[in-house]
Structures are given as structure tokens and as C-alpha cells.
């Protein structure tokens, strides 16, 4: 085991002077609508995977995912979820109209099947503008993130940075992915879906990932802005980090170099030591290469604390929500820390020596962490870490 990294004594040097808080959140997942449904589902420990009925999976090798009922419309779900997050944050209509939206999506859902002449009008920006208009947010400053499985977490980090450096008072960050035929076909063709219908992060016998619905939104704002509205923050966004592997188009660095730097940067910005972390929601995709790389990254960044910090990958419960993963799992981390119960790392069969961490196994674990982290990774060697502090 390596020594822990040196943590910067002056976190402000890497993060700007402002304190960043989260004042509201809303979510829809395979467990249903709302944070309470998500929390109940997570704490049940029962994975939400079931046979896909939303589209034809007959030609596919794997035919399960974590989906909510029916065939919901992404724009409708995002618009509703953003509105619910604003309600949760107590945002008045006038405040909403001044708040920009950062939105993480894969693409405009209609572009792939549109007539060529219509495609130029079907960019992600047009989609995001419709979501912003529908939820009463600002018509300016809208930004779309398309960076695969770190799209939403990068958006949250950038929003936090903009607020900490005084560039913005408040930003709503949202992300949405609803399991659909094209990404399902691609992941099936790439042979990364688990053919035993279970995601088993960091476990022996893991056979891959499974997709899952995820639509989430959080209201990120400066502490001063929240105080001026007399709103009590849910959590502090104490630190964040993003870094690249510089290694491969679609494989993580085996030693987790980029993720280690992202985690270290988040700790530095928060000005805390690795030992202060009380929970870590891992990327934990459940694939052969990604889980050992992440384990190495956590050992590198956390040092000895990598063996003691409770870790779970809740993708084993709600599935992989692609571009929305970062906001879905950030909300999971917020709920776990603020409600005092850490969700289980489901599907575990046995210890893989290359993935030895302090996993939350068997059932949810009672704990009251002061600090918790959500880690994400994506193709291209992109890595993010978001660190929250519980008031």
C-alpha cells in the first residue's frame, strides 16, 4: 500500500474563493419518480434490472436493462425533472428565469432518423433550449455536454468552478438518458453487456454492465445566493476534479492515473485528507478492465484510506445511465450521505484480488459521513470526481 498523497494546505488556490452548495435535486430512475423512490430502491438492495419491453431486443445477445414503466419521452422527463429540482430548491419564477441550464445528453433524440434536410435543426442545443424554456430557466447561457459517461459530472464540476470563481451565482445541471434501441444495440454489439443479467462491480465473475434509465437535475449555487434566498443547502459541493488518462480511445489507464489525479484534485479543492471521506460512490462499471483500473486509481489517490473508505457502485442497482450517470450518481451520493445509509454494492460473488476495496456488501450500511465522493469515468480516458460535504 502506498502512502497517501500530500493534500494542498490552501484549497482556495485550486478552486476560487466562493463556497458552492446544492439546494435542490430531482430524479427519475428505474425505481420510479423522485428521490424517495430512488433511495428506497437503493436501500432495498434489489437491482432494478428486468427484460426490456420498450423496444425489440430480439436480435440482441443481452435483453435486460433497468427501465421505468412505459416509453417515456426524454424531453418531457427532463423538463419535469428540472422543474422539480427548482421546486425542491425553492426557486421563484424570477430566479429561474435568470438561471442557465447545463444539460448532459447523448444527442437530440430525433436526429438519427430525421430527413437530412431537417438534421441541422436537431442539434443538442435546440433540445436543451426546449428543456430550459419548458422549465422556466434562462434562455441564455445554455450549455450541452456530450462527453459520454462523464458528461453530467463534468457539467457539475464546471458549474461549481464557475460559481466558485464568481462567474455565476446559480446553475441548474441536468442529465438524461432513457434506455433506447440504438445505444442498446451498440453496447450489445460491443459485447460489454452482462449476459448473466446482473452487474457485479469489483467482484469475481463480473461479466459487464447493464444500461439503466436516469434523468436527474441539481441546483448548484453560491452559498451567498442561497443565503439571500433564505434557503438551507442540502450539501456543500466541497471539491471537484477532472483529468485525462492520455492512454487509449476506449480503455482506462491500467494504473488509473487520470482518475487518481481527478480524485486528488477534488480532495485538494476541499482541503481534506483521504481519511476524511466517509463514502465513495464508485464508477464501478462491472467490466473486466475498468474495475481493476479504478481500484488502482483509488489506491494511488487515497493511499491507506483506500482500504477503509466504504465504497459501492450503485450501477449494480440502477444500471449505467450513460451521459446522465454523473448527475444520477451524484444524487445517490447526496442521498446516502445526508440520509445516513450507504447503498450496497450488489451482485457480489467473491473478492477479486485486483479489486480489493472496503465494499458495502450484503445490505445497506448505516453511516453518517461528513464527506462523500462520486467518481465517474468514460471512454477517452476522461475522469471526474465530485466531493460533497454534509452540513
Amino acid at each position: 500500500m502506498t502512502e497517501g498523497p500530500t493534500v494542498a494546505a490552501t484549497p482556495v488556490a485550486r478552486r476560487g474563493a466562493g463556497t458552492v452548495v446544492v439546494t435542490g435535486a430531482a430524479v427519475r430512475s428505474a425505481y420510479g419518480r423522485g428521490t424517495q423512490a430512488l433511495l428506497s430502491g437503493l436501500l432495498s438492495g434489489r437491482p432494478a434490472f428486468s427484460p426490456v419491453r420498450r423496444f425489440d431486443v430480439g436480435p440482441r445477445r443481452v435483453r435486460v436493462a433497468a427501465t421505468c414503466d412505459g416509453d417515456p419521452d426524454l424531453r418531457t422527463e427532463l423538463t419535469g425533472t428540472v422543474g422539480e429540482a427548482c421546486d425542491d430548491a425553492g426557486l421563484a419564477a424570477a430566479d429561474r428565469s435568470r438561471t442557465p441550464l447545463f444539460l448532459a445528453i447523448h444527442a437530440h433524440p430525433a436526429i438519427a432518423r430525421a430527413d437530412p434536410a431537417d438534421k441541422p435543426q436537431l442539434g443538442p442545443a435546440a433540445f436543451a433550449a426546449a428543456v430550459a424554456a419548458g422549465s422556466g430557466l434562462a434562455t441564455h447561457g445554455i450549455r450541452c455536454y456530450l462527453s459520454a459517461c462523464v458528461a453530467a459530472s463534468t457539467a457539475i464540476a464546471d458549474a461549481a468552478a464557475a460559481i466558485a470563481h464568481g462567474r455565476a451565482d446559480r446553475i441548474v445541471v441536468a442529465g438524461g438518458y432513457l434506455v433506447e434501441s440504438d445505444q442498446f444495440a451498440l453496447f450489445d454489439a460491443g459485447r460489454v453487456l452482462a449476459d448473466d443479467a446482473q452487474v457485479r462491480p469489483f467482484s469475481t465473475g463480473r461479466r459487464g454492465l447493464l444500461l439503466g434509465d436516469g434523468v436527474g437535475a441539481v441546483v448548484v449555487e453560491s452559498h451567498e445566493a442561497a443565503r439571500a434566498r433564505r434557503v438551507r443547502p442540502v450539501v456543500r459541493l466541497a471539491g471537484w476534479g477532472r483529468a485525462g488518462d492520455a492512454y487509449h480511445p476506449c480503455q482506462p489507464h491500467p494504473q488509473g492515473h487520470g482518475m487518481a489525479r481527478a480524485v486528488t484534485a477534488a480532495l485538494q479543492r476541499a482541503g481534506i485528507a483521504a481519511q476524511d471521506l466517509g463514502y465513495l460512490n464508485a464508477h464501478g462499471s462491472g467490466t473486466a478492465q475498468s474495475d481493476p483500473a479504478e481500484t488502482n486509481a483509488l489506491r494511488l489517490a487515497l493511499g491507506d484510506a483506500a482500504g477503509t473508505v466504504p465504497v459501492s457502485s450503485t450501477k449494480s442497482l440502477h444500471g449505467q445511465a450513460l451521459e446522465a450517470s454523473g448527475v444520477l450518481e451524484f444524487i445517490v451520493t447526496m442521498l446516502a450521505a445526508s440520509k445516513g445509509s450507504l447503498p450496497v454494492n450488489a451482485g457480489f460473488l467473491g473478492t477479486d484480488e485486483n479489486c480489493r476495496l472496503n465494499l458495502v456488501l450484503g445490505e445497506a450500511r448505516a453511516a453518517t459521513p461528513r464527506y462523500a465522493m462520486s467518481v465517474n469515468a468514460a471512454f477517452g480516458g476522461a475522469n471526474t470526481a465530485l466531493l460533497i460535504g454534509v452540513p
Partner: protein
Amino acid sequence: MRPPVPQAYPGPDALTAAAVAAGLVVRACAGWPETPADDRVPPLAGFIESTFSPLVAQVAGRALSRRDEPPRDQVTALVIVTALGDVTSATRVAAAVDAGTRVPPLLFFQSVPNSVAGYVAARWHLTGPVACVTGTAAGLAVAAIQIQDAEADEVLVVRVDVAVTDGDRDRAAAVVVTGPTGRNRPGTAES
């Protein structure tokens, strides 16, 4: 320091002007096409059927090769900017799904812009954050905040637009930018 290479086409010039307007210093720029010889985008191994990823690799390489040799510990971020994304690949996948035919496995990797970003990052040892956003202004804002937030010393911003309609043509531009005060990043624990 070498000055930015003058460009005959509006893509890199417009991107350079936008970067300067955003308060960034442009260290190098590049475009596609730059000369009449740029009539076919060179293929990129592992990426098929769409010019999106080859275009990114081409202009990224041009811009990075035109900047001064960076310090050994320089951290460079990569931001891909696109209006529509890789429409060619997305359309190809949808057609295969609708027809019930086989989806080529290589399209799995290139269906997200991160994959070519990973190629560029590995080829040029760019260890900073990787992001993909819509809109030039948004891309430059991400670059600026990454520098101000001490996440990177410089940022490679690549704008890519593949031809969508008849008569349209592929276009891409790239700039390497820094902040006005140079290096902003403190020493960090190198892993």
C-alpha cells in the same frame, strides 16, 4: 513563441477571433480544409464510415504540432465542440437497427466523441480533462474555466462539423489556448 499560422479559410480564423474575444491567448491554430489539397480527410485506424473522428485527429495534430514544445509537466485539456455530433455514425446505427441488420462493433466505440479525444490525448500526451460540448462560445468558456480553475495549463479546442446535407462539406478548426497570465496551475501530486 511562434505566431499563430495564418489561415485562408474562415474556420480557424473565426475560432481564433472568438478565443481572443473570450480573453484567451491563442498559441496555435489549424483548420480543415486549409488548402485545395485537403479534399479527402485521411482515414484514422479503428474509426469507420464517418469523417467526424478523422477530422478531429487531423486538425488536432496540425494545431498541436504548430505550438511551441511544451514543458514536460504541462497539462493540456481537450474540448471538442460540435453543433450536431457525429451525425453520420448515428444515422448509420439507426438504419441498421431499423433494418434489423448487424451493427458494426467499431461503431460502438466511435458513437461518442470521447473515443477520438482519447486517441488524440494518447497520441499527444494530453493529461488534462476531456470534454465535448455544443457551441463555440460554450467550448471556449469551458476552456477558460479549466485554466482559471487550475485544471490545465493550456486547452486544445477542436470544432468539428461533418457534412449533413448535399453540397455541404466537412469542416474543422482547432486552437491551442492559454490564459492571459500563463500558467495558473500549482504543483500537484503526479500519479
